[in-house]
């Protein structure tokens, strides 16, 4: 086999490790898959009654795609924890002492976390459909929306690997996790940014999470008052592609650099 062939094969072996974790400890992984569902039911129930839309549509039409985007952000925590745990427990060193490329180690993480996000989305879509949420623009459009969501997850993967390699232990990850929440809330996930005070709305609109949420709502045909409010709101589709690519362009090399400096 060629170098690339082995990197792919080894990457898959490392991804399978995570799949085996799921099988060995189903309780833990099922909880992480259903946590966004809990958020959806909780916020839908809490805020849904207070929300009124001109066309009479349900709050879930706005909320469900928002929770999709939020679930992608929460995936970051899993990546950080997994990477930091492997470094602190010496598993990363064991991998580095084997005759395989470091690409395989990262590739394995990448495959496992993307699969995890796909399952998360499937569970959320099923719940959303049960609550009355629908996509209205046809399947290709809906698939494009899921593509945008997974693109954001892919970008956040590199952020997670970078932070995991930087903090190097699972305890410190908890501190970073606290910061994930305000980022999640300061966006168009739960409410249209047009309802916020101007300065806050502007910050929330420029949050990449909002762009992905707003763009996927457009592709699903769900209402989103944020979409018309400002420049960034009207260009959400473009921003939902460019912001993740920018994040990847910054954090992929940073992660690679961190991985190399483990040897300094």
């Amino acid at each position: 086999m060629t170098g690339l062939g082995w990197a792919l094969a080894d990457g898959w072996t490392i991804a399978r490790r995570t799949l085996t974790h799921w099988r060995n400890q189903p309780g833990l992984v099922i909880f992480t898959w259903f946590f966004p569902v809990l958020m959806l039911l909780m916020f839908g129930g809490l805020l849904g009654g207070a929300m009124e839309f001109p066309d009479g549509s349900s709050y879930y039409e706005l909320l469900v795609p928002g929770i999709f985007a939020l679930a992608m952000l929460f995936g970051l925590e899993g990546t950080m924890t997994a990477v930091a745990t492997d470094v602190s427990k010496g598993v990363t060193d064991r991998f580095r002492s084997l005759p395989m490329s470091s690409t395989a180690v990262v590739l394995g993480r990448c495959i496992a976390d993307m699969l995890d996000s796909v399952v998360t989305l499937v569970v959320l879509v099923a719940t959303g459909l049960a609550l009355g949420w629908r996509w209205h623009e046809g399947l290709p459009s809906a698939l494009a929306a899921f593509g945008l969501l997974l693109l954001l997850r892919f970008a956040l993967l590199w952020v997670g690997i970078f932070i995991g390699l930087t903090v190097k232990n699972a305890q410190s990850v908890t501190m970073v996790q606290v910061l994930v929440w305000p980022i999640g809330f300061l966006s168009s996930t739960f409410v249209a940014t047009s309802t916020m005070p101007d300065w806050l709305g502007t910050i929330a609109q420029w949050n990449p999470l909002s762009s992905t949420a707003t763009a996927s709502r457009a592709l699903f045909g769900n209402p989103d008052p944020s979409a018309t409010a400002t420049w960034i709101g009207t260009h959400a589709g473009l921003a939902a592609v460019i912001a993740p690519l920018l994040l990847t362009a910054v954090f992929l090399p940073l992660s690679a650099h961190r991985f190399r400096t483990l040897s300094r």
Partner: protein
Amino acid sequence: MTTERVIEAVGVRKNYQGGTDGAGLNGFDLEVTAGTVTGLLGPNGAGKTTAVRILSTLLEMDSGTATIAGYDVRRQGAEVRRRIGLVGQYAAVDELLTGRQNLVMFGRLNHLKNHKSRADELLERFSLTEAANQAVSKYSGGMRRRLDLAASLIVAPRVLFVDEPTTGLDPAGRIEVWSAVRQLVDGGTTVLLTTQYLEEADQLANRISMLKAGKVVAEGTPDELKTQLGSDWLDLVLADPADVPRVVELAGPLADGEIRVEDVRVSVPVKDRTKALVVMANSLHEAKIEPEDITLRRPTLDEVFLHLTGAAA
């Protein structure tokens, strides 16, 4: 036995700016012959782990040269990694996988075709067959370390690095791991073992290199070193400080070197262990001095270093 050198390090230096990550190396030299077990013995912070991490390509050195089986650890890392096994200070196995799943995974990553039968073989060899399908998180410390050893031996390595294999283990776990390492030695694997226990190096190694502040300060077979180590010590702890001068006087004829007094503790270097103990006990009895404690002991690592280098460790 051949005299091929499988590990050769000359003047290896490593400086840590932060100083928190580990101890540096300061002109580290080492030669290890094929088929031997070399113990790298030193106190915490002497640079043992740093040396192992550099030799196993996990850490870059600042200057110096090092080769494993003739391959340069700096420039031919991939070739080196094909020939080494590493057992870290912290058992680097996946806790959420079972013992068998761990070995199968590491077998696949070593590109072994028969990874499943190899896993079973190693589980058998390290007496883990019964626990094979249990999650590693349920293993005892000794079992975990044995699994770690097994994982490093998936592909029979030319050189096995074993970094403080018994740190944090209870005595039973320590004996388990010792017997596992002895098996490797019988199989002819070249082993570089780091430890802070004199006894462990003595039990397992053919040759011992003593490391202090990033440098090898003494080197030889355990017997050669033992004669350099200095005498055993007879420690007397007295109830009454007023008795100290009298006890020093009584111990005088037995002492094989300078008697050390620290508070109410009198330490006497002795040659003939049993005789010294009996004679001392008798003299104390006749002088009607009742000691709090009277013990015979091997020199501590600190005393060995003091003896070898003439400076406090």
